[in-house]
């Protein structure tokens, strides 16, 4: 994956859009234009203590001067969102990477069906704006507890009109995956939200004949896998033949770095794809949420993935 520029951006506005969601609009202190992006893209916020968090851009890609994000306070999360809610105010400087898109709209699709859960709605705001402007055929299912807790619902209504289908559980309407129907040619399915919703969408899609390459899921959190027990293995560098030992308690990425092999990285939890590199032979235990199945035979994410006994890296 590619390296991305990190910029010091200024918080232009910070407004609470629901009791738990903070909308931030970020601008460059001196440049009128920021790096371009496409709907579905995210940026990394680099917090002062070194933590890095990904947030989808929810504004308008045509508006080149600002990046809009919406951050939900997760009190039982890893602390990044709580820090943002507690500290960022208009006028503050925040360190932000240039955007990357791991969740793009399928260019060849004739119809787009999107399922958003809670704050997972953010990438779909940008997508819906683009699809509505280009007259594309789409439906956005938006799941939340209540009207009050549904982030940016008013903006979505204005963008989508009748193509927005709200599912508010407090009103007794829980999302029913059966509405997604069977797979039809040219229709692509997208989902972003809590793990439970993603599992529901995936399970329905698998049962209703949707091919993997027409189901797109945005994950900002590694798949929980508490039973995984790491084993040591050897990593061979194809360029030099050097063999590095990766102990059970260290990542391949950490061992490569220690050897002085500079690898770009960002989330280090198998989500962002920054550190992905090629490999040749060996049995790899893929533990990331980024590399598509079709690419897993020759690409791996050294931050979380490991190998059985040994692997040869294209490094």
């Amino acid at each position, binding site marked *: 994956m590619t*390296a991305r520029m990190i910029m010091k951006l200024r918080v232009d506005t910070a407004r609470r859009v629901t009791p738990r969601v903070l909308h931030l609009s970020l601008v460059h202190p001196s440049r009128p234009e920021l790096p371009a992006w496409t709907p579905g893209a995210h940026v990394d916020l680099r917090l002062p203590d070194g933590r890095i968090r990904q947030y989808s851009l929810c504004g308008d890609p045509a508006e080149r001067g600002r990046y809009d994000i919406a951050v939900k306070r997760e009190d039982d999360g890893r602390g990044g969102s709580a820090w943002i809610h507690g500290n960022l105010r208009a006028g503050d400087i925040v360190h932000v990477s240039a955007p990357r898109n791991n969740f793009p709209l399928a260019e060849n699709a004739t119809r787009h069906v999107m399922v958003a859960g809670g704050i997972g709605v953010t990438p779909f705001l940008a997508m819906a704006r683009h699809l509505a402007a280009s007259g594309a055929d789409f439906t956005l299912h938006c799941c939340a507890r209540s009207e009050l807790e549904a982030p940016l619902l008013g903006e979505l209504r204005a963008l989508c009109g009748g193509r927005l289908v709200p599912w508010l559980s407090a009103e007794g309407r829980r999302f029913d995956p059966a509405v997604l129907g069977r797979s039809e040619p040219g229709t692509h399915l997208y989902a972003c939200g809590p793990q439970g919703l993603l599992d529901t969408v995936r399970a329905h899609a698998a049962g209703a004949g949707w091919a993997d390459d027409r189901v797109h899921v945005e994950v900002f959190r590694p798949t929980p896998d508490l039973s995984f027990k790491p084993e040591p293995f050897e990593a061979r560098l194809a360029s030099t033949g050097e063999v590095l030992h990766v102990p059970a308690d260290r990542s391949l990425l950490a061992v490569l770095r220690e050897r002085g092999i*500079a690898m770009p990285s960002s989330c280090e939890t198998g989500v962002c794809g920054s550190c992905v590199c090629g490999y040749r032979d060996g049995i790899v235990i893929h533990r990331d949420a980024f590399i598509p199945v079709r690419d897993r035979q020759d690409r791996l994410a050294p931050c979380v993935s490991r190998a059985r006994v040994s692997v040869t890296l294209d490094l």
Partner: protein
Amino acid sequence: MTDTNDAPAMVEAFAHPAGKAATAVPGGAIGWRGVLLHIHIAPSASYEMEELAEGLCVAGRGIVGDRYHAGSGTYSKKPDVREVTLIEQEALDALMRNDPPLQDGVLRLRPGDHRRNLTVRGVPLNHLVGRRFRIGEVILRGGRLNFPCKYLEELLGMPVYLPLYNRSGLNCGIERGGVIRPGDVIELAE
């Protein structure tokens, strides 16, 4: 980014194999007189460059505030010279004319996008490996030719690798520190 915990292996400019070899070879342009146009630093690897109205050069270290002065830049495995990096405005001008025509169109790099510290005009950088030269009160030593990197292409999202080949600038060590400012005259110190 690519920060490593290991202290980067840096060498003095004329101890680098390229600089050392060149000191023994006579030649190169003389009688020129150039000017410093811009000073840029990046606080850490991958960070956007910031322009300075004046830069404090520290002998044997770098420009205060820059990633290589702080030891938080992107490093190769081999011992290197990176206290200060320079690029010719003339090379950037050529990119803007798409000369040579390697790309679909022109490449417009804004100041600092090239990620070199000093942008200079009228300075034959490719002649200065193994040479000492002056920027205002500061004396630099040309250690090796800079080489375009894929990393820069990725950061910029622009295909600059090939058009910058052989005109990517000069990596220098600082022999005598001091303050530099845009407008400072640059000339050979010999």
